[in-house]
């Protein structure tokens, strides 16, 4: 019994060393999911990000069909990659409302000229206020908002070809 007792610290050490070794081989979770899913959007009003489209407020999400809220920026490289997929969602009849983060009007216009414009409105969020309100931690992120203005789904990172059907399904579920 006594000898067994002395093995306990060694066993504990080996257990923790093994655990640490195992965790090192696991992929680190790089994303921080929003805790605001199923919560209503806050009341907000954002100025137009450039002269071509109107700004965004909460009331733009209320009524009609579920919509996508896309957080992006002209300085964000993955946003270039997701542009054609947002375009496709738009062709499927989805209204996409954009939030341009820390961006200049001329840069926004230039980006849309180059990579296409799937947005019905773009609001300008220069101090990440709406981002923080809805628990977004980076650019780009895409949210499904139902017709009552509730957040229903969050996609972190750029929208890819394989994300399009997921978003369409989530939009259908949000009806």
């Amino acid at each position, binding site marked *: 019994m006594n000898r067994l007792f002395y093995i306990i610290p060694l066993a504990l050490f080996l257990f923790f060393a093994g655990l640490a070794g195992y965790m090192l081989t696991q992929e680190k979770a790089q994303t*921080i999911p*929003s805790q605001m899913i199923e919560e209503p959007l806050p009341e907000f009003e954002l100025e137009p990000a450039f002269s071509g489209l109107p700004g965004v407020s909460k009331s733009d999400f209320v009524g009609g069909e579920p919509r996508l809220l896309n957080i992006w920026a*002209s*300085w964000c490289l993955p946003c270039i990659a997701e542009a054609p997929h947002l375009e496709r969602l738009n062709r499927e009849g989805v209204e996409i409302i954009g939030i341009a983060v820390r961006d200049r009007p001329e*840069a926004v216009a230039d980006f849309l000229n180059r990579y296409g414009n799937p947005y019905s409105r773009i609001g300008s969020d220069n*101090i*990440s*206020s709406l981002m923080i309100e*809805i628990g977004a*931690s980076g650019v780009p992120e895409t949210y499904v908002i139902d017709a009552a203005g509730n957040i229903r789904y969050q996609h972190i990172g750029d929208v890819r070809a394989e994300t399009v059907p997921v978003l369409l399904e989530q939009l259908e579920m949000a009806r």
Partner: protein
Amino acid sequence: MIRLVLAILLLLGAPLAAPLKAQGTMPPAPYAYTQLDDPALEAEAADLMETLRCLKCQSQSIADSDAPMAGDMRHQVRSRLLAGESPDEIRSWLTQRYGDYVSYEPQVSSTTWPLFAIPLVLLALVALVLLRRLGKRRAADEGAE
């Protein structure tokens, strides 16, 4: 030759770098780098900011980080303190949005309670073992006399 290759690479890379720079050239949020006028309130802000985690650079607090997002979070902290919210209210406002992740101050919750309980249990165990040993030794000493 190497210079030529470098020059061409730089030229090719320049248009990629330009949009990246735009994020840095936007003016920061008003209270990102500006302290509050009231020193007591600013001290509260500093204490709070040191225990809030930057979401873009996850090993730094928002007080340490130069990421634009961290600046925007500092702006939230300072402007909310100025509006009369308490540091605890601001912390829970953020954890409502980002979960425990955003806070460096450990909270006792359904997943973290073992971290707080285990040291207490171990201490109790050690105390028990010590008491028994000392008790035995005393009994042995008394028996020998």
